[in-house]
């Protein structure tokens, strides 16, 4: 945060709590962005995998479970991949929702804090 030019605006405990909350939300926002990116990648991978699966004509597919590749019949692999796709897309939805809510809260706090401190505070990304 920048230092102000010697203004006399007092910082109350409530202001401090707002500033803290903004900091926490900002951190969580960045973490969420990473998580969303990761979830999108997994989703894409699962999509590619299921596409490949449709193209292949092998009966037994080596499906990775943990550190080993188990020989699993094609149908079972298909259903597993469908399950995993559902889980990841639900997760992705949840993350996106959380991100929206955080952005809204941050915008609100920005208004409050800029309203009180005007130029004495900097809440933008560096």
């Amino acid at each position, binding site marked *: *945060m*920048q*230092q*102000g*030019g*010697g*203004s*006399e605006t*007092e*910082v*109350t*405990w409530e202001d*401090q709590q707002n*500033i*803290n909350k903004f*900091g*926490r939300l900002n*951190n969580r926002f960045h973490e969420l962005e990473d998580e969303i990116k990761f979830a999108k990648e997994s989703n894409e991978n699962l999509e590619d995998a299921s596409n490949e699966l449709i193209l292949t004509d092998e009966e037994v597919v*080596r499906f990775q*479970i*943990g*550190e*080993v*590749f*188990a*020989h699993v019949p094609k149908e079972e692999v298909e259903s597993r991949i469908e399950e995993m796709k559902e889980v990841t897309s639900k997760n992705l939805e949840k993350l996106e929702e959380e991100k929206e809510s955080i952005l809204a809260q941050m915008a609100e706090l920005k208004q409050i804090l800029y309203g009180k401190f005007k130029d*004495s505070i900097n809440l933008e990304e560096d």
Partner: protein
Amino acid sequence: MATASSSSSSGMVTERRGIPGAQFVEDVQTYLTQAGLDVNSALAFSKKDEELVLHSDNALPEDMTLQQYKLVEMKLQAQQRDLQAKIPDIEKCLDVVATLQAKKGTALITDFEVSEGIYSRASIEDTDSVCLWLGANVMLEYSCEEATGLLRRNLDNAKASLEVLLADLQFLRDQVTITQVTIARVYNWDVHQRRLRQASPKDS
């Protein structure tokens, strides 16, 4: 001109699991006179970021705590990374055990890694038990149910520890923010004082 305001704040946690809480300063003037610090001789600014260069004997208590906080933060973040790597591992193990249980009766053929880039085929016969690596060069054999129970307990513990850790980190970041804001306020107050003195040079 200084108003007599209370210098204690309410609703503040004084410390959390060994991390000292940052004291919130209600009024800068009162705080400085109480601490017996003369801001003018104590603060020397060479750069405009939060790392204020201080004369060592009159250092602001805030500056020391900021460095300590940073150390603790790095330690906690390292722990967080460890836990975040451990949790998917445990989940993978649970998956394998579940698959073994599901495939009871039939032999399971798998390709496993012998060495980097080299895989070999193995046929896993009907299994009632698995061996779990407990760390410290110890491996124990468990029945599938016991193994699932143990792994689930480990997973729950790891997730709970991670939550506590994240809450600690949040608390820590709050304290860092409070400290940074206090440093900025002291600086502002000082600049303000200088301006007042320049404006009325006959008062000292």
